[in-house]
């Protein structure tokens, strides 16, 4: 897991440090986790940056890192992925396989506790291949958070991990689908 520090204060904070902020913003940094490609990233910035609309600020930080993102209500993100079912449908019912799925990069809540997700489109097969790496990075991030006394961030990490997990993995389905593909390639080359 990588941790990034944003070493910047607001102009207001710099001008009024002696009278108003003091060292408050440095003693109370804000931390949040987001997910990009296969990695979990921890961002830390000074508390004074959080004084305005902190959601907008977090969103703008993420949008700088992740291009072409979209924002959905969390329940509207299409995560109806079941690898085993998708591969069976492809093999037996000749259905085409999903091309893209939405990867959840960040989950946030508005003042009424309504959950939103910042997402990006990734290739379906790419996401299947990346699952093991995501699992490893999740375990590593969990250890990192516990070791550095950021255990209060664990629920956030778990939510992100669950949102990006693909269900129904079955090794046998992969083998059968590969066999099917080999047969199709052989038919095309005859």
């Amino acid at each position, binding site marked *: 897991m990588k941790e990034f520090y944003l070493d910047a204060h607001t102009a207001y904070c710099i001008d009024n440090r002696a009278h108003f902020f003091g060292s408050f913003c440095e003693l109370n940094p804000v931390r949040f986790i987001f997910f990009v490609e296969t990695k979990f990233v921890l961002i830390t910035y000074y508390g004074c940056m959080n004084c305005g609309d902190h959601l907008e600020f977090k969103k703008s930080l993420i949008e700088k890192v992740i291009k072409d993102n979209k924002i959905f209500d969390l329940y509207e993100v299409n995560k109806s992925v079941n690898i085993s079912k998708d591969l069976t449908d492809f093999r037996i019912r000749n259905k085409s396989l999903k091309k893209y799925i939405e990867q959840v990069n960040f989950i946030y809540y508005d003042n009424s506790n309504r959950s939103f997700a910042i997402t990006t489109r990734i290739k379906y097969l790419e996401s299947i291949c990346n699952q093991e790496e995501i699992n490893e990075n999740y375990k590593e991030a969990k250890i990192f958070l516990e070791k550095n006394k950021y255990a209060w961030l664990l629920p956030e990490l778990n939510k992100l991990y669950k949102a990006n997990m693909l269900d129904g993995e079955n090794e046998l389905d992969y083998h059968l689908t590969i066999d099917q593909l*080999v047969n199709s390639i052989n038919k095309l080359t005859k």
Partner: protein
Amino acid sequence: METTKKVNTKELLKHAFNMMMLLKQKAISVEEAKAQSNLIKQSNNLLRYELDRSIAEQKFDKLHIRNIEE
């Protein structure tokens, strides 16, 4: 030639799909596709053997299967 790709069924599946797409787009020749499909088939058989072997070893306690490398 070295590769950084992992050797597992998921990568093999992705590779097989890519081959199929390339063949449909006529980006690779028929000979190349044949050679690739043979290699994919052999790799798949080896990985399938590993899977069957681990399932069998889990099911039966006193089962001794010869290692494939021996």
